[in-house]
């Protein structure tokens, strides 16, 4: 019994606790639900204008500065105008020390040097009549010099030609003499002898002697046989035949000897005749040689004479070309240089600055490049003046895409122009940026108003503003693989009250600037768009608005 009562109490208590918890949860369900939901910030879709601005920073440069230069090197005595001063035309800018400029001094020194050189040339031995002619303004012309040179050259060349001709003639004559001597040698080398005939005669005589001996032997043999009673008729005949043959041989030999003797005699006579002829020829040749040698001597004398003539004319020509004419021309040139230098000195004297430099135009001094005591540099401006009304420029480098949003003539605003200056800026030109011509463009602004060169300015220029009916803050634009979208707040009724749901709307971005974006899509223009949230939210998720 007690046990059953305990069990009933336990169940009753459990039911009470359970119902109490359920009641509390039900009463506070909304609060609990709200606390678990992400809180979002929203803004209403609006309409308005979007102006896409291009910003950039650049340094102010003088639009058309005027450089004041001192054309001589003069010492600065004092500076009157300073940077930033407004000057009027002819206002004194600085004072110079009153002395000759360095350029005039240098010119005078140069003139003196030229004069000294001229005097040295005059006393160096030039023809006084020539000097007088030159100083009188009648200096020989180039054509005259050329004529003189040509004449001298012609004479020299003619003399040389003559010398060459004589040398050739001499050489020919000497060659002829050599040929004659050679011929004499050849003639003298000739010999006339009857050696062959004498030799033949000796042989014939020898043969005759032998034949006679043989005949005598044959005779002796015949006589012996005839005296020998025992000799046979044949032997006697044979001996007789031999004797006849030997006699015949003797006769032949004698005839041969006579013939050879005759030949020998003729040969001797012939040799003598030829010898005398050769002697005559040799004599003739020697006479010719002697005659030509005389001629050679004469030619040599002639040649020497003409050689001297040529050398004399050559000397005259060289002297003319290398010495006298150049000296005359130098004299003329020197005189011309002196005249020029005198003009230069006169010009410098005319140009010579006074003691003050004045402003040639009215404007503002933007640069002073000299200090007191320094010497001015003709190549460097001493003052740079920004003429009144000429203006300044600022160049800003932008990307090509940014440059497409800017047109020439667009007005620009100054960014951070909190100092209240009355400045105006207008786009003057757009051109490729020389530092990066493939990617960037240079926008050049014309600046007017209170501005100084070297000042850094940030300018903002934009397209003409356009009206859009649906504009949202940039933070409302989201994106995923289905494109850009916004999340709008939609209200739904539920048993626990009104609930807010984030609903996705796909949009297309038309234009945007630094803070707003113009869109078009499934929106009517009065929706509440979610800009930020305490945690990432997705379409269809329950959200809560700030209290």
């Amino acid at each position, binding site marked *: 019994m007690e046990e059953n009562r305990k069990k009933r109490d336990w169940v009753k208590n459990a039911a009470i606790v359970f119902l109490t918890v359920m009641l509390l949860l039900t009463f506070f369900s909304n609060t609990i639900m709200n606390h678990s939901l992400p809180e979002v910030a929203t803004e209403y879709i609006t309409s308005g204008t979007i102006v896409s601005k291009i910003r950039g920073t650049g340094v102010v440069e003088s639009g058309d500065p005027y450089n004041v230069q001192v054309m001589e090197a003069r010492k600065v005595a004092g500076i009157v105008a300073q940077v930033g001063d407004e000057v009027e035309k002819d206002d004194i800018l600085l004072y110079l020390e009153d002395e000759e400029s360095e350029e005039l001094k240098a010119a005078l020194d140069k003139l003196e040097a030229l004069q000294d050189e001229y005097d040295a040339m005059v006393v160096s031995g030039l023809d006084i009549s020539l000097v007088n002619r030159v100083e009188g303004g009648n200096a020989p012309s180039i054509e005259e010099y050329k004529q003189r040179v040509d004449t001298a050259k012609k004479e020299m060349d003619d003399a040389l030609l003559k010398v060459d001709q004589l040398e050739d003639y001499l050489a020919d004559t000497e060659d002829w003499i050599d040929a004659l001597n050679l011929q004499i040698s050849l003639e003298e080398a000739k010999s006339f002898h009857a050696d062959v005939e004498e030799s033949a005669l000796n042989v014939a005589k020898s043969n005759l002697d032998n034949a006679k001996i043989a005949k005598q032997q044959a005779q002796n043999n015949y006589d012996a046989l005839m005296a020998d009673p025992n000799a046979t008729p044949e032997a006697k005949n044979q001996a007789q035949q031999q004797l006849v043959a030997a006699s015949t041989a003797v006769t032949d030999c004698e005839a041969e000897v006579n013939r050879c003797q005759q030949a020998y005699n003729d040969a001797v006579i012939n040799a003598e005749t030829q010898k005398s002829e050769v002697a005559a020829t040799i004599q003739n040749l020697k006479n010719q040689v002697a005659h030509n040698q005389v001629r050679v001597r004469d030619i040599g004398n002639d040649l020497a004479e003409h050689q001297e003539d040529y050398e004399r004319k050559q000397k005259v020509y060289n002297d003319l070309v290398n010495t006298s004419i150049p000296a005359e021309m130098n004299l003329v040139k020197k005189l011309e240089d002196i005249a020029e230098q005198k003009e230069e000195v006169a010009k410098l004297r005319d140009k010579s600055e006074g003691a003050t430099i004045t402003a040639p135009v009215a404007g503002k001094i933007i640069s002073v490049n000299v200090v007191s005591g320094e010497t001015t540099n003709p190549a460097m401006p001493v003052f740079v003046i920004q003429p009144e009304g000429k203006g300044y420029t600022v160049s800003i480098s932008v990307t090509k895409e940014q440059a497409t949003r800017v047109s020439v003539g667009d007005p620009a605003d100054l960014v951070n122009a909190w100092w209240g200056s009355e400045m105006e800026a207008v786009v003057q030109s757009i051109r490729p940026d020389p530092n990066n011509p493939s990617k960037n463009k240079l926008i050049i602004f014309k600046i007017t108003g209170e501005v100084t060169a070297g000042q850094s300015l*940030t300018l903002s220029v934009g397209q003409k503003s356009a009206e859009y009916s649906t504009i949202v803050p*940039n*933070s409302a634009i989201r994106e995923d693989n289905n494109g850009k979208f916004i999340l709008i707040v939609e209200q739904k009724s539920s048993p626990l009250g009104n609930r807010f749901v984030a609903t996705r709307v*796909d949009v297309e971005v038309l234009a945007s600037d*630094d803070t707003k974006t113009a869109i078009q899509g499934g929106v009517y223009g009065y929706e509440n768009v979610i*800009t930020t949230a305490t945690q990432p939210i997705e379409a269809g998720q329950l959200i809560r608005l700030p209290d």
Partner: protein
Amino acid sequence: MRYKFENVSRRTKICGIIVVVGFLAFAILMGIYHRLAKALDDQQVAERWNKEGNCAQISCYFPQNTGITPDRIQAFQHSLDQYLIQSSIYSDSANPDARLWIAAYSSMGTLSITTEQTSHITQAIGVGGDFFLFHPVKLIEGAYFSGQDVMQDYCIVDRETAWKVFGSTDVVGQYLQFNNVPHKIVGVYERPAESIYEKAGLSQPTIFVSYDTLTKYGGTTEIENYEIVMPNPVRSFAFLYITEQLGDKEGRIELLENSSRFDKLRILRLLADTDTRTMRTKAIVYPYWENVARGYENNMMTLLLFAIIIVTVPIVLLGICGIMAWRRKNKKRGVKR
């Protein structure tokens, strides 16, 4: 005989409690694990970009002197467009402006903020592309900027910088001067308060500027980090392409797939590599978001290890009880016969 709880043996009760508690603890740990896996918005970009899950998020971290510049990135992205066309991957969205992929790059540096009174150096992150789609820092005021904006002279400052320079957080529209060049503040963000972010490299006030600004006024010359979300029709399609295009043979560049970073199998593999995990063989300085993710990996490794250990006990107990009950049943059947 009616079943009564009092008749159940003490041992059985204890085993039952251990099993229930074990599974409950395992469920809680896995719940925490999943919560941690979804906690980092930086690592969930692929899911946010395409809820159908056909995308992968790849991160590339470059050491110095690898020559990665915006021009190099632009060339790569152009080749990516061609590759997707060749692979017959097209957008099937009705929105003609829908994109198949998004990418962002960034570098760390410092900038000198000059005001009328003073100037000071601040940490800066130069960003390009759709950086804030990958890293949606918590905005207090204003909006994000992107690399597609016409002007690149925007900046987003943190609360501390806004207070330091202007004395207020309502500074959207004001200008900060870097090297005397004004840059427009378009947003103010709150740095995460968790200590892990401070340890990860976000301990100092940090502003976000365009990569162009950091290059001009901060001295940065190269991109340090590049992230991309692109179609991934099959496993590792995106990772292999990125590795081929942006990786290097020497292995100096770090590439990883964020979308599968916290998968259990991967975390288990990290458990197996605990001896080499802390070794640094690459000269890379990771950005704060990567350091935070690595910290989370370490925590999730610990959680997973504990969860495995804890769930092993009830499973083993159940197994033992089941075997004992089966034996008992067989014994009773034997007795009945």
